């Protein structure tokens, strides 16, 4: 498994694809997401159909896999989703833009900052609103912390499923420090609703920088703990290497993005290839592995955690030099005027009243914005008719595409490997069912 950490340098081979994991394509011919039981097996009725149902410890959330087993090997699989369909898009059409910002966090409830960011970026793109630099850097910092948080939840739960139970407690120890940082900044551990159309909702509190520094120094040590626990653990290597193979072409054909794509050898990361926020001013490397199996997805996510820690460190350096800068844009048509200004100026009072009662208006048009969330490309397609409410909001869910690869990855594997594969695809059901 050759590992290449491709640098952010100008010289770049597009897109670097290592030696193929298997020849041809393993996508099931009839329906790409359903693996049919081969004909000769269906007559011999020792095919056992098992429900990896909605309430199953190893499917992260309410995913249901109908698995046909010949003894221990998986010969047929089809995923049933929709058990957590919450009708986000219908609800957001009823809410004004301002109120709608709190919905996207609940979609992908593990990488919630990135989801909120994608909706806010879509609003700002339509409004052609420029955001102060301090807000951009703070958003980037929180999204990277959220990426580490999401990879820690992935590592804790999928290692727990494969028997490495102590990993759960190790990972959740670091996760608690990240949630403390979120709570320090925005007052709540999850779903912080800290991003506003035009910047961030509040200024950065006093004690945030030293706390974040402590975390950034602590994280590499913790990452080293996880590596010593897992990387030379024979059981872990045996259970993950060579399991759930996905070649680069199949990954691109199935619309995979994020760690699953980078583990199959395609060098593609939105933060570097179509930079948003201030990612072009930050130096980080994109881990790419060519094994295309569960082990390489684990290694991509581990390296990403290390890279994200470096990004957080650079954001902290930049932010500490930006004391006293505005943290939200001063365009009164969209952003609430500060409280004290209301007592003195009439216009601010009118703006305040208009924004609070009716909500600010976004010019008519349609926009698609994509962001590199921990699971892959999380996009937001927004159509506005110029009124205070969005006409149509659609979220492109990376987990939705990731689950389409279950049929391709789990061909001929044992049922125990199926748990490792579903864990490695890291699909969050809220994201899949929206």
């Amino acid at each position, binding site marked *: 498994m050759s590992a290449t950490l491709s640098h952010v340098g100008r010289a*770049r081979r*597009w*897109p670097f694809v290592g030696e193929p994991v298997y020849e041809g394509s393993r*996508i099931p011919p*009839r*329906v*790409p*997401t*359903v693996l049919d039981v081969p004909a000769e097996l269906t007559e011999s009725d020792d095919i056992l159909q098992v429900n990896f149902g909605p309430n199953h410890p190893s499917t992260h959330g309410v995913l249901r896999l109908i698995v046909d087993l010949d003894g221990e090997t998986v010969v047929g699989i089809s995923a049933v*989703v*929709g058990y957590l*369909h919450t*009708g986000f*898009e*219908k*609800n957001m059409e*009823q809410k004004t833009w301002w109120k709608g910002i709190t919905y996207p966090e609940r979609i992908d409830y593990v990488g919630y900052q990135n989801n909120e960011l994608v909706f806010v970026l879509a609003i700002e*793109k*339509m*409004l*052609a609103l420029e955001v102060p630099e301090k807000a951009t850097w703070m958003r980037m910092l929180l999204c990277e912390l959220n990426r580490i948080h999401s990879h820690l939840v992935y590592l804790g739960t999928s290692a727990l499923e494969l028997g490495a139970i102590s990993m759960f407690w190790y990972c959740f120890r670091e996760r608690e420090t990240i949630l403390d940082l979120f709570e320090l900044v925005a007052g709540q551990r999850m779903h912080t609703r800290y991003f506003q159309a035009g910047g961030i909702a509040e200024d950065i509190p006093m004690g945030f920088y030293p706390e974040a520094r402590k975390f950034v120094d602590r994280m590499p040590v913790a990452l080293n703990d996880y590596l010593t626990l897992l990387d030379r653990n024979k059981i872990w290597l045996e259970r993950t290497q060579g399991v759930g193979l996905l070649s680069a072409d199949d990954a*691109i*054909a*199935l*619309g995979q*993005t994020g760690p699953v794509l980078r583990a199959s050898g*395609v060098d*593609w990361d*939105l933060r570097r*290839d*179509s930079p948003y926020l201030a990612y072009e001013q930050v130096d980080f490397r994109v881990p790419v592995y060519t094994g295309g199996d569960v082990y390489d997805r684990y290694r991509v996510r581990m390296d990403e955690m290390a890279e994200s820690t470096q990004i957080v460190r650079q954001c902290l350096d930049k932010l500490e030099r930006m004391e006293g800068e505005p943290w939200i844009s001063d365009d009164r*048509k969209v952003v609430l005027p500060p409280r004290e200004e209301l007592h003195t100026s009439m216009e601010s009072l009118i703006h305040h009243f208009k924004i609070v009662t009716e909500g600010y*208006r*976004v*010019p*008519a*048009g*349609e*926009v*698609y914005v*994509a962001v590199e969330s921990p699971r892959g*490309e999380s*996009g937001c*397609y927004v*159509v506005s*008719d*110029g*009124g*205070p409410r969005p*006409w*149509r909001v*659609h979220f*492109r869910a990376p987990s*939705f*595409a990731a*689950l*389409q690869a279950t049929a391709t990855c789990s061909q001929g594997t044992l049922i125990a490997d199926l748990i490792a594969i579903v864990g490695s695809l890291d699909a969050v059901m809220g994201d899949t*069912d*929206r």
Partner: protein
Amino acid sequence: MNDFAQIPGYVSAKDEHGETTVVVDRAHVREACTYARDELGFAMLIDVVATDYLDWSAKGVSGYIGTATGRDLNMPMTQGLQASPDAKPSRFSVSYHLLALRQGAPRLRLQTWLEDGQPVDSVISVWPAADWFEREQYDLMGIRFDGHPNLARLLMEEDWEGHPLRKDYPIGGEPVRFSPEE
């Protein structure tokens, strides 16, 4: 960037907020997608989205005079004059968001317009990723995709009637009681 006129079934193209949208005739969707994938190099289908424009410009919308480049600050908001947004060709729009894995991440939106009940060719043969995307749009918006091997409800229950994301489908849920009297 080569212009998109050669796409089979090409109707019109527009460039807004830095995104190119090519409107394609409903009957040529599959050829257009194959052309986009093979000649233009859009290797990845990111998303299939259906939008319902039922009574889109029925009631006026007082708001900013939205210009192509976004809001025009010195043009005051319409004081009460109901500016109705521009009419749409027909009720439903199905947009295919494509992404090319190349330098600069070029993106393209292939858009087709159709009325209620008109089917669209499925693009599963072009990108296998379209399987669930199309099933979801069929389930929530009621767009039929011909040639889809397994077009069934994906998110809602199998025996659910109606397509929830349509504009004429009620939001459901319950009226909120703010006081215990009634």
